[in-house]
């Protein structure tokens, strides 16, 4: 049984100008020990998908519907408050995108990590503090005691990001939602954190959802990639296939626009046009207005999500 099993998830936010359809029919599953990367445009619904699974969106305004949304066997659509609190942090932990605003400004980092540990496990304060210090050391913080005693405003973005990763890992979650966990970090720390996450996965069989824009991070860490665009899944495939032979035109465009593929100061390949307006998405395939190979039917009808092989599937009219 997969650790996380989502079928046909939709999330919308009713607004004055119309309904923002952030997620439109996403299906996703993650097994224990598996790592899945979610990549895609800004605004394609990656964060909202993660937040919806943990029921962290304010409802209302958010409206969540799904055929199935199970986390370690618990139906998250109908879970009680107590069930939710028990799952969050313990079964599934989350590393948030913006470390600068993720901590309560009036408490120390130590307090906030300790309270997380003690929310799920019966340990003394000093034990929890000891664990917190160890965790900080593992995310390459050289002076854990000093950081435990610091307030968020005293630390740089990179420090906060690492502290947040330590906090998320503090209850040994079965699955980690890492929403851009390394954007605020320099490459050296990033490489170390990615290594740490991989080690922990191997050690505890932790599942991982890695939300990122950085295809390098994807190449380094995940087994399988889910490509999202306009609230829909465009393609899913093993990571090697995505890099070797992207099938969906959007994935192809994404790979082509990656910086750093060749030497020298240069303009990069852009995907022409702007992201779709989420409250008025294009008809048919959400990518068709920017797609180089779009046809008439792409605008008319949403392509079905079809398997190309046992491990690959994509939603494109041009694919078999």
């Amino acid at each position, binding site marked *: 049984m997969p650790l996380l099993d989502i079928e046909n998830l939709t999330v919308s*936010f009713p*607004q004055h100008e119309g309904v923002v359809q952030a997620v439109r029919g996403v299906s996703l599953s993650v097994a224990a020990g598996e790592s899945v990367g979610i990549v*895609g*445009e*800004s*605004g*394609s619904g990656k*964060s909202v998908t993660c937040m919806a699974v943990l029921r962290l969106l304010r409802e209302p305004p958010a409206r969540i519907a799904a055929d199935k949304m199970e986390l370690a066997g618990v139906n998250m659509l109908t879970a009680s408050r107590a069930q939710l609190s028990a799952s969050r942090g313990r079964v599934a932990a989350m590393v948030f*995108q*913006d470390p*600068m*605003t993720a901590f309560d400004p009036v408490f120390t980092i130590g307090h906030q990590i300790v309270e997380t540990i003690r929310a799920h496990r019966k340990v003394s304060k000093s034990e929890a503090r000891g664990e917190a210090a160890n965790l900080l050391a593992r995310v390459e913080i050289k002076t854990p005691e000093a950081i435990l005693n610091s307030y968020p405003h*005293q630390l*740089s*973005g*990179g*420090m906060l990001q690492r502290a947040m990763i330590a906090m998320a890992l503090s209850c040994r979650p079965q699955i980690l939602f890492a929403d*851009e966990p390394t*954007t*605020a*970090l*320099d*490459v*050296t*720390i*990033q*490489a*170390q954190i*990615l*290594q740490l996450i991989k080690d922990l996965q191997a050690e505890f069989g932790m599942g991982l959802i890695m939300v990122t*824009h*950085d*295809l*390098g*991070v*994807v*190449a*380094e860490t995940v087994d399988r990639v889910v490509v999202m665009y306009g609230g829909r899944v465009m393609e899913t495939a093993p*990571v*090697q296939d995505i*890099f070797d032979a992207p099938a969906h035109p959007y994935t192809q465009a*994404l790979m082509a*626009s*990656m*910086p*750093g*593929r060749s*030497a*020298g*100061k*240069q*303009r*990069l*390949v*852009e*995907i022409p046009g*702007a*992201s779709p*307006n989420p409250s*008025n998405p294009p008809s048919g395939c959400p990518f068709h207005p920017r797609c180089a190979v779009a046809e008439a039917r792409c605008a008319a009808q949403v392509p079905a999500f079809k398997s190309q092989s046992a491990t690959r599937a994509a939603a494109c009219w041009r694919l078999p």
Partner: protein
Amino acid sequence: MTPALELRNLCKTYHLRQSGGVFARHSDHLAVRDVSLILPKNQILGLVGESGSGKTTTGMMAMRLVEPSSGQILVGGYDITALGHAALKPFRRQMQVVFQDSYSALDPMMTLAQIVAEPLHIHGLGTAAEQAEQALDMLVKTGLDRSYGGRYPHELSGGQRQRVAIARALILRPAVLVADEPTSALDVSVKAQIINLLLDLQAEMGLSILFISHDLSVVRSLTDKVAVMFQGRIVEEAATETIFTDARHPYTRSLLQAIPVLNPRERRARRFLSRAEIEAATPRLSGYGVSTGKPELIQIAPDHRLEAILQ
């Protein structure tokens, strides 16, 4: 030619309180030590380095948003280090900054069009209608649909907010832009757009950019020169390709080594040097002058500075 921005021997010491309460002890933290940089007109200078190495502090000092403890800041040849608030105002228009943390930089009560138009409003440029029109154009330039003009920051994803911050900074057509990790929250395709946008603006209106980033791939496609910071100091500076192909400092090398591979097949376990190991591996050079026994920044080629110990 006078450089767009020149930093001379900038230092910044933060005075930290050790413990809370009324009788706090103080300690000093040297965040930036003796940084000298030249940003030539119409060029892009990358500033990379480990987290906490003082990149943001350096950028903020260049903008006079953080007061330097010592050193000088020259904008277009004018020393602005000691200018007061009023004298600084004309320079403020020429120097804009995009912050690392765009969420807190955007006023939650204003629409995106208002946010982007605000600098025009502050400097009294154009009628309200013109300002709004320019703002919408700028939003489109940064890859947001015009329909976003009426929306509010909290409705946006992280990357969308960053585009708004960039649109706001560029609307005054500044001469110098300090961009502090402006693309780190952006997805690859928008990142490409922003980089192309910055390149275009640089060509079109002679924009000079101090580009602070962790993302070495972006730095490689965007910058002319790269300065590498480590522990508050510049340890190496050279033309971008020199840095990527002929780096000499151990920290620069470990940084390059840590760039994620762009092919899953090349995944590898890495060994990371500790700070002490890096310090210990400081290059030793002879033939560049008198030995002081201490690391110093040495011009080893016309366009290459390296921190080394002279022998």
